């Protein structure tokens, strides 16, 4: 069935317009439907924690904001569609060029850091600002140094990633994403590949972002305690849909759906 694009607005306006809005979004890989009819609004400055079993589509939610094309629905960021573009007063699927531009305000951190191994920490943080934003090397360096300072990595700025621990690499990766001055930050299990004793250095940086910056964030995590501490809302995914969502205290202490209860008790007993 073709998606009728006229049902979606060209832009989202108004003071209460969400920073990120998924409208009826469906994502398929071949015949496999990974997300179905997803509706999700994220307010400016809101921190959303995404939890759920493996394979439930959590990563896919983030990837659609970053890399992927979708089969149905429209995604808006900062009021503008990022999956489609307006042409003659109608939405049409976006060109590659438009896609790249539209996603500039979105930054992402990955489970395996994905730092550029042939560049130092500082060069990693300067690459985007210089090549994509066209900043001068001097300004980009200054910005990168500020951010490396903020994540506590300024001492290691001239090291290549292979000389850094996982926790250090992830902090550099956060600085690299922030150097693009994103409005929305995505975190995909950023502590899952880390040794337990260094998880804290990364979560502390994220906490700092929450308290000191007005970033909108979507964070996929398996750390329920952390999600509870810092998120404004928790979304529990199951089978490519949001099974249940709510304030962390409500969702964790008083889950309404059976699947949520099962998942949370399974996670608890695993800890």
């Amino acid at each position, binding site marked *: 069935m073709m998606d009728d694009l006229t049902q979606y607005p060209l832009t989202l306006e108004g003071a209460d317009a969400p920073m990120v809005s998924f409208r009826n979004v469906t994502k398929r890989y071949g015949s496999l439907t990974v997300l179905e009819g997803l509706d999700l609004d994220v307010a400016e400055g809101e921190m959303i924690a995404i939890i759920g079993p493996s394979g439930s589509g959590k990563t896919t939610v983030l990837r659609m904001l970053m890399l992927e094309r979708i089969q149905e629905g429209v995604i808006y960021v900062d009021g503008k569609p990022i999956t489609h573009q307006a042409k003659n007063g109608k939405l049409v699927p976006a060109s590659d060029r438009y896609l790249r531009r539209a996603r500039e305000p979105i930054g*992402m951190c990955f489970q*395996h850091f994905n*730092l550029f191994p*042939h560049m130092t920490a500082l060069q990693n943080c300067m690459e985007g600002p210089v*090549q994509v934003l066209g900043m001068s090397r001097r300004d980009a360096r200054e910005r990168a140094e500020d951010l490396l300072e903020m994540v506590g990595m300024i001492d290691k700025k001239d090291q290549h990633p292979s000389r850094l621990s996982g926790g250090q690499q992830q902090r550099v990766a956060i600085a690299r994403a922030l150097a693009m001055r994103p409005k929305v930050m995505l975190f995909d299990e950023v502590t899952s590949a880390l040794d337990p004793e260094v998880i804290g250095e990364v979560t502390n940086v994220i906490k700092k972002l929450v308290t000191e910056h007005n970033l909108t964030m979507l964070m996929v995590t398996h750390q329920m305690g952390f999600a509870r501490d810092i998120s404004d809302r928790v979304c529990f995914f199951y089978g490519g849909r949001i099974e249940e969502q709510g304030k962390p205290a409500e969702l964790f202490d008083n889950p309404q759906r059976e699947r949520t209860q099962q998942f949370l008790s399974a996670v608890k007993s695993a800890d």
Partner: protein
Amino acid sequence: MFDWRWDFTWEILPRLFEATLNTMIAAGAGYAIAVVLGLVLALAQRTPWRVLTFVVREVVEFIRSTPLVLQIFFVFFVGPQFGIRLDPWTSGMIAIGLHYSAYLSEVYRGGIESVAKGQWEACASLSMSTRDTYFRIIIPQALPPSLAGMGNYLVGIFKDTPMLSVIGVAELMHTANAIGSENYRFLEPYTLVGVIFLAISLPAAGLIRVFEGWVRKKLGMQ
């Protein structure tokens, strides 16, 4: 039985050294063409344009499954029928460069595929253009794993230059033949050719490995 003549050896050595220089120039120029064209062929196979990808894939397959000497003949003797008249040197460079570009494109392809998928995602997350993604992130990382293969083909192209003698390029083999038929003595010139090839090819492998280590270190990738 073994009547090796040293006076003759010393006499022909300067001519053979000059030919060695020509051989190295031929190999170097052919290799330069192959290095660049090979990258073009490798990247062309990664574009979203299906027809281009298919055609390039087939061309690479074709070049790889036909003999070099045939390709040399083709460029030199069949070219003129299409109005492309080239001297032996140019024809030789083009043929050998084309031939090896097909092999190098496969080396590059392997190198590019060995770069972690997360690198592409990181580039996308920074909204980097396709061009920057390739030239600043992917290719520098694809280089170290490609160097061993690239080095093998450098030695390969060097050893294949004698084939250019068939169209009259004055490289080492051609010169040795000429010396031989002028003097009715083939033992010394052919032996010297063998020694020269050995003397250049043998250390090459070691040097390439050293170079690979240097590049890895330079790129901060151990």
